[in-house]
């Protein structure tokens, strides 16, 4: 039995009939066609699928699409929707905060939330803030630098 799901994603309204068991990440990628969020584990550990739901970052493999019904979702595609990179994106670029880029959309979403909650984080606070997002390439150091640079830029 499919259910109607109403979502607002990156400012656009999406209405679809979906199976209740459809994970939100699969909805975003396969139904809404937003492949920025990635699937790294499907078990809510790696954070590659991180998106913001009603302003709070969530691992979108950890909930069903129908559970997000009525909510406002921001994915990485919505961060630079105006065509201008966000300050966190610029910082990741300048500081080489990514290599293969697979974790990056989720990492940027988590980092943005971190600065929203704490605009002047210490190194330890940054590491804590991105601890739910795995990166296998960077050793996190340039990501820490990026978040610090974004904080300095007043992101």
């Amino acid at each position: 039995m499919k259910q109607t799901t109403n979502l607002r994603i990156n400012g656009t309204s999406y209405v679809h009939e979906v199976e209740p068991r459809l994970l939100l990440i699969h909805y975003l990628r396969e139904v809404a066609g937003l492949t920025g969020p990635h699937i790294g584990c499907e078990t809510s550990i790696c954070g590659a699928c991180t998106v913001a739901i009603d302003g709070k970052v969530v691992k979108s493999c950890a909930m069903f699409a129908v559970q997000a019904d009525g909510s406002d979702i921001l994915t990485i595609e919505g961060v630079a929707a105006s065509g201008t990179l966000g300050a966190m994106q610029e910082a990741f670029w300048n500081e080489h905060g990514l290599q293969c880029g697979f974790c990056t959309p989720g990492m940027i979403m988590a980092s943005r939330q971190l600065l929203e909650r704490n605009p002047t984080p210490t190194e330890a606070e940054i590491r804590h803030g991105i601890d739910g997002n795995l990166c296998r390439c960077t050793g996190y150091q340039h990501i820490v630098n990026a978040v610090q640079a974004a904080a300095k830029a007043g992101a």
Partner: protein
Amino acid sequence: MSTTISVTEKLVGKSVRRREDPRLITGTATYVDDLKLPGMHHACILRSPHAAAKIRSIDISAAQSHPGVVAVFTGPDVAGVGPVPCGASLPGLRVPHHAILATGRVYYVGHAVAVVVATDRYVAADALDLIEVDYEPTAAVADPEKALEPGAPAVHPEWPDNVSFTYHQEGGEPEKAFAEAEVVVKQRITSQRLVPMPMETRGCVAEYHAAEKSLTLWSSTQIPHLLRTLVGQMLGLIENRVRVITPEVGGGFGCKLNVYAEEALTSFVAMKIGKPVKWIESRRENFLCTIHGRGHVDYYEIAAKRDGTVLGLRLKLIQDLGAYQQLLTPAIPTLSVLMMPGLYKFRNISADIVGVFTNCVPTDAYRGAGRPEATHGVERMMDLLAVELKMDPAEIRLKNFIGNDEFPYATATGLSYDSGDYAAPLKKALDLVNYRELREDQRKAREQGRLMGIGISTYGELCAFGPSPATPAGGWESATVKIDPSGKVTVLTGASPHGQGEETTFAQIAADELGVPIDDVIVLHGDTAIVQYGIGTFGSRGTAVGGAALYFALKDLRAKIKKFGEMMLESDDVTFSGGVCTCNKTGNTVSLAQIAGMSYRAMRLPVNEEPGMQATRFWEPPNFAFPFGAHIAVTEIDRETGHVAVSRYVAVDDCGNIINPLLVAGQVHGGVAQGLGQSLWEQAVYDDTGQLITGELMDYAVPKATMMPWIETAHTTTPSPVNPLGVKGVGEAGTIGCSPAVVNSVVDALSPPGVRHIDMPMTPEKVWKVLEGARA
């Protein structure tokens, strides 16, 4: 922090921010799972829950009739597909037939048994549960040393001793050296199985055009051209009708330097059903079915004089191969043997490898591939020798380094080290940590009862793979440079970067050589229909071999540009610089765009020149390159919990000339993270029945941001004479240098209670038990 570049500046050596990044930071890059082709179906694979079992029967009928399922295939259906290839050869090597689906028996947990194709990936996954396999479990063996014991279960019944190969290598007179030694130190040292764990799992999409008998295979691989050749052979397709495309690749670390059953299986399925098919590996499958790394049990003996002069090194190496030979499986431990002398003047070497089958997923190349194991061994042995002789670990290293005047240095294992100043990074690292003061701090800490350790590792690595006679495939790399009629530059590299950033570093090189803005250059890779044959990206070879090929192609083009310039300026005294040809007599100039335009319009041509502005070079390296460096780790151990805190980590690497310091730092950080992961947390643990009990991210401890120390990096620069760029390679350095520094540090911390050695991973539980044992 990246720098802003003005057009006239040289770019090589600058921290240019990456040209790959805009698509990656906006979520608009296309990884293989992002592909959506019209009519595309999805494949899911049923995998064995047993490490060893006979398959009595498989009932696929319920799965076949499940709504949405298009086809189900089992072993007999794919009997016509060639085996998964092993590219390495050793004398007497036993290579089991590696069918793409198990037939009759399964050999490890995760072994592919059946494939379901459906309209939707959820439906395909549902249908897997409807397949009934009647297994008759048999005894399994997962530990390579147990597999060698008499009466151990035979992984492959035809080879009851579980030995795939033995290999002996010797240099100098090891027997004599050990007989004459004043001191001999022995130690068993393990390098545990690791899961490479790129953030993107494997995956592929296959599309077959029956009318043209052509296959397009998108795969998350490090070796598109080799994959094309080999998967084409497996499927009986004509090579030029197979096109392999690597879309964005989300990390590889060696595990995508391979040809996997699933790449052929997905292609086979697409050919059978006449529709594009996608298979994406789940993370659980990635743990179970993608190759693992390491898997060594090493027995070392070091011979020395009482003054600390090393004389000889002996190694018995037991390599856990797993159940099959993947592309390079048996070659990996031979790399360990080649690098076992490290940076020292060991003139007498003896090594024996036993390659052992186990009921586990195969091991193969993982970041460093044989060289971290070798470095770990020799660096642990140097520390054990220092302890035995009551020498300082820095002093014993400085005493035994190969001297600066001895290059090229012929090792006892048959290598020729290209260039080096091995003491320089060690001295720099000692300065950075203020070594003398640090030892004083340690003395005070010990007085207070604290367990503080200082660990040194001085590593060398065999990189820039490599001369073709010494590699399983060709060891060269290719590059094409095309200049359009408008003067814009396209570089096609046979390397296949997947995070390393060669779209940037190669553009830096091309922009410098042609004197054009970097934005005039694009770098393409990873599509066999577009790029000339190439080898791929692995073994720290991308820039050292692929970059050198690019350099020579650019050199050819520079010569051609100059000839056109001479013709157009009607002068034989012309300089090509800054993107223009200038007549040195008149000062008249023609731009690269004018020259390129002329070369295609071809109204006039220089003598003996063809139209067009394009050059291709295949560059064969005359040798490997040998980066080196020194890492120092300072640790402190919590007596109550066994927790190891890394309070300081200094990495001084010499990777030759540096094209982009920002990217080099990134490679070192990431490499150290993987080395630290091995040192402290990561291990693929199989139980006695062959179940992988660290088979998910809940149980397998990939380093998180809070687990990583700040990594202080520095460099010394010794250009390699092997390639014209003077680069040595840096992709694996961090991993290779790290683990011995950390283990040496922890052993140093635990030395007051009398601890002599500890194996990785040094989890709190293990460290605590070692401490308890030492107290008892």
